[in-house]
């Protein structure tokens, strides 16, 4: 399948900063994948994301070399208007991306800006509300919503623009565990129903390993590890780069050290995987 996102030798340095925020970065993401981007705070994840939807270089100045291609066209040469329709960006704090007084108006915000005719806008807003199952909130004001609901509203506003690629910047950081796992289930469902590609920056990897196709680890502005979550998390470097290795994986690594036979059960990432492995051994 064609690559929806291709980062080619990208380096970027903010003005007044002594070192690159992102260095010699290479990445190809085929359409329809869920990719998790992990790494310690300040490792350049947010900067990388901003080069994908064009905030860098269109809104921020700085030293930019290499190229980022979204659906085959260069971000540098695309307008914010075109990029906004291909790349959806869910920022960390949902509060600061809800502009209007009612949920449905806010979901329509991007479409209004693009000059989408009213009938089509109505249909797309209703579709987005339905996808996120927040139709009952349509008339609510932002301050009447919980954090989880705000997150859904913000995501609905992004999806109404029908982006091929959606970026989620630490989407669960303000959510309680239950709402967070609901959000992850939602991402998996949207990928299945719409074929949307997701790039997710996330620290709570145990939430996402079950649905992610790929895990990319960044440190110091560079890509240090890349592969399926299973491959990356069982590498010893993963923890050294500050990746939160799921407890199940840690348990298995510990057991593997003591009894080589147990490791043969396969590399485990999730509690359900562990449960069935244990059951299998008992049977």
């Amino acid at each position, binding site marked *: 399948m064609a690559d929806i996102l291709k980062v080619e030798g990208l380096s970027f340095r903010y003005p007044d900063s002594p070192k690159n925020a992102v260095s010699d970065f290479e990445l190809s993401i085929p359409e329809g994948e869920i990719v998790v981007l992990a790494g310690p705070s300040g490792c350049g994840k947010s900067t990388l994301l*901003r080069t994908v939807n064009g905030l860098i270089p269109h809104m921020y100045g700085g030293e930019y070399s290499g190229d980022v291609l979204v659906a085959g066209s260069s971000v540098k040469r695309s307008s914010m208007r075109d990029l906004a329709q291909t790349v959806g*960006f869910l920022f960390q704090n949902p509060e600061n991306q809800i*502009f209007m007084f009612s949920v449905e108006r806010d979901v*329509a915000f991007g479409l209004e800006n693009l000059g989408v005719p009213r009938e089509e806008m109505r249909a797309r807003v209703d579709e987005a509300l339905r996808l996120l199952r927040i139709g009952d909130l349509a008339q609510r004001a932002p301050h009447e919503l919980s954090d989880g609901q705000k997150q859904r509203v913000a995501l609905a506003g*992004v999806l109404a623009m029908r982006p091929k690629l959606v970026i989620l910047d630490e989407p669960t950081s303000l959510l309680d565990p239950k709402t967070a796992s609901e959000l992850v289930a939602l991402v998996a469902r949207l990928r299945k129903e719409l074929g949307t590609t997701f790039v997710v920056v996330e620290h709570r990897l145990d939430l996402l390993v079950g649905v992610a196709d790929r895990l990319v680890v960044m440190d110091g502005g560079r890509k240090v590890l890349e592969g399926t979550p299973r491959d990356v998390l069982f590498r010893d470097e993963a923890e050294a780069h500050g990746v939160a290795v799921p407890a199940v994986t840690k348990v298995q690594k510990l057991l593997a050290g003591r009894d080589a036979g147990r490791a043969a059960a396969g590399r485990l990432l999730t509690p359900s995987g562990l449960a069935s492995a244990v059951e299998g051994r008992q049977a």
Partner: protein
Amino acid sequence: MMWLSGGFIFRRGDSFYHRLDPRAKLLNSVLMFVTTLLARSIFEMVLVIVFMVGLSAAATVLKRVARTMAFTALFSGFIFVVNVLFTRDLETSVLYAIRFIAIVVSTSIFFITTSPDELEQVMKMFRLPRDVVFAFVTAVRFIPVMMLDTIQIMDAQKSRGLELEKGNLIRRVRNMIPILIPLVVNSVVRSGELAEAMEARAYGAVPRPTSLLVYRARRADVGVVCAAVVLFAIAAYSFYFVVPVRFP
């Protein structure tokens, strides 16, 4: 303070008046405003106020309009005293004092029955630039957020030993600085994030953005506008051309 300022903040309601077209509500408030300026006697002014109170009751906002009146009464007391001192004319002074209340009430009725969404529509109708309308929209949108911010900052500073309720007036004003600085810094950070989110949602992509909602005048709106104009004409005529009616 919060209790009193409630007289100008919209809260969702469901009366015939709330449902009117925002343009009809605006016209109505403007006409009431002008009528208060035309009234020449206390009796006429009281008539205008009685009308506005009746309208508020019909719009189920009487309690909040009463708050507005209580709030403005403080100022109108001041206006009365100043007028008595300068004009030595009791009737005129009372008239001015009541007129002030009436003016505030006429605008208050508009603001407490018109949602921010509708206000935005009215601003668009006056062909204000999109940026101006949007600035207004975000300002109103973030009022509750900033209020929450303020409370959190106050709690945080109090837990660090800041004593807000102590000292004389100057001291108290100075005590607000540790509240204001984080609040301003927060808002600046927030505005940066908002700008990014606006770009990501294609703000300014086309010169004439479309709108999800559309306001069309219905029969009820036309009816109310006609009634308002007729009433205004009668009031204006009698206040202006007929000898002023006074309390006996």
